[in-house]
């Protein structure tokens, strides 16, 4: 364990600064996001993730935001364990009918002011599951949605960009 810890101290941070060719620089994204979040929310944005029927693909990529390469927490954003602690609900999935009430209750349990970001193509319009008897479809038909981040699933950079767009347009 000592080796890992020592390496952690000596090695340069893995968290990325360099711009990627097809996306705006992560560092730049981080800077904007950090500044705006700080201005509007006093350095913090608490996010509660709600899986409303996803295939788990979106969750895997949301999870990746916490790894050292993306390090979401450096922007003052963090995932919280309860809707009672949350500013934002990050909702995935085509809202199965069996999850609808749970989503509504999670929304009701989130204190105002609150926002909802729908993540993934299923959350946008039900995706490949839109015609099912078991799905409601778009998250927006169950709770008010402030932003959609599309993708099947959206990769972590897309998620970061979406979160920035969200913070910038927050009123």
């Amino acid at each position, binding site marked *: 364990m000592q080796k890992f810890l020592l390496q952690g101290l000596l090695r340069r941070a893995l968290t990325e600064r360099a711009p990627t060719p097809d996306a705006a620089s992560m560092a730049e994204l981080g800077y904007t996001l950090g500044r705006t979040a700080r201005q509007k929310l006093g350095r913090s944005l608490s996010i509660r993730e709600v899986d409303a*029927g996803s295939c788990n693909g979106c969750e895997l990529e949301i999870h990746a935001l916490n790894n050292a390469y993306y390090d979401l927490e450096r922007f003052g954003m963090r995932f919280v364990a*309860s809707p009672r602690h949350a500013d934002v609900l990050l909702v995935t999935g085509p809202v199965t009918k069996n999850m609808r009430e749970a989503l509504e209750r999670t929304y009701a349990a989130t204190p105002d002011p609150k926002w909802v970001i729908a993540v993934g193509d299923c959350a946008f319009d039900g995706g490949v599951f839109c015609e099912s008897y078991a799905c409601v479809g778009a998250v927006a038909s169950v709770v008010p949605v402030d932003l959609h981040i599309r993708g099947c699933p959206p990769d972590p950079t897309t998620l970061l960009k979406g979160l920035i767009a969200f913070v910038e347009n927050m009123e």
Partner: protein
Amino acid sequence: MNFASKQTAPQSSQPTCLPWPREIVDRTGWLAFAESLAKGERELLSLWGEGSSVHMAVLEQREPRLRILSLECPDGAFPSVARLHIPASRLERAICDLYGLKSEGAPDHRPWLDHGRWGIRQPCGAQEKINSTCDPYEFLPVEGEPFHQIPVGPVHAGIIEPGHFRFSANGETVIRLEERLGFVHKGIDQLMSGASIERAAQIAARVSGDSTVAYSLAFAQAVEAAFDVNVPPRAAYLRALMAELERLANHFGDVGAICNDAAFALMHAQCGLVRERILREAASCFGHRLMMDRIAPGGVLVDLEREKVAGLYALIEWIELMTPRLIALFGDTTSLQDRTVGTGVVSESLAKQYACGGYVGRASGREFDARKAIGYAPYPQFAFEIGASKECDVDARVWVRFDEIRASLQIVRQILDGAPEGPIIAAWALPEDWTREGAALVEGFRGDIFVWLRIRADGVVQRCHLRDPSWFQWPLLEAAIKDNIVADFPLCNKSFNCSYSGHDL
């Protein structure tokens, strides 16, 4: 274009299913199979409904390894398999919910996937409109010493899928855990019926996102079996490459997450790096981090460019360097071992009874791996060792995953060394003569995924049954947590990492 070359039109009353036969049995035959399952002579692979018949897939100890049996039940009922062989219970409850077929004499008649919220009953059978918005559900009783109940979910604290757990605890000790699932039921059986092969493949790829490659592969193999399509050798290699990358990414992600549930964040951070680098390499090689929709019936849709091979070699070398360090970090941290050793024990007899696949089965002495047992292409060409343990606890499941990581690294190396050149997808067309049936058993990271399908001559899927390995792992989680403390549940749960979406369909 070699479809129909080996097939002749079905002559007898027995259906033609490839590569394993499907036999129509009567009630006596059905019960005889159920009894042999109970005696442990065969293993139950799956049980599913279709119209007014039920099908059962079993694993034999000799060739053919797999048999599919069908029972007509015109009066809407069939003799319960679960009455003799309890692992069938949840599958039967699901059949009743979706198809309205009743299992006679079943030990448990409570609905499973149907929570009374669909607005209809038996969505895949004779549909009935209902007005209720929610059914009451009766959890199993707990009697005896003073105890308390802890309801958890469906919305959990982490970034994970939804499901409900009902703990009955005496102080800190769990007396009984009862799972209630079905929250992410998306009606996949019905969506599949009537879909084109292309659309059905898309849905199959979204049954469980972490196993998207394995599901696409299983679906493609079943279609190829049905239509007798030969996959080009290069495509088989690339499929295996994607499958092993998916396996590696999931194992690293899970090993880290298990340690994180024991509050050992260092391991989580390090494993997260490995996982991320695998996903990035996957995106660079195949254009999608999870490699979704890259496998199609007939082959693969994206070729591996020559200049990407060096990157994959570099990745494998780096992981080969990191793995022993991570193993040492896990094995030498006694505070972590204190949490994992002896926690969440699944007995060997239970693993065998449930024909439990993947690392859960292998950590409890059941060494089944479809890559070896079925030996689909290109795996028979590779040398690799499957991990196994008889320690049966959380610790064993982590060690088995390390073994599987080593095996996958061996396989990826052999793929990169020996991938043949050539086409990546077979040109094939629908024979437009008669309805075909195919089946496949593919080893996903979590265990064996079973697919059976029937496709009409015009390419419309009539029925596609997808069975996630979680069906036979979820019930064992209930057994594993018994007599452990509540605080060890996340650890046990993560060491299983069962799929909610794959199970709820």
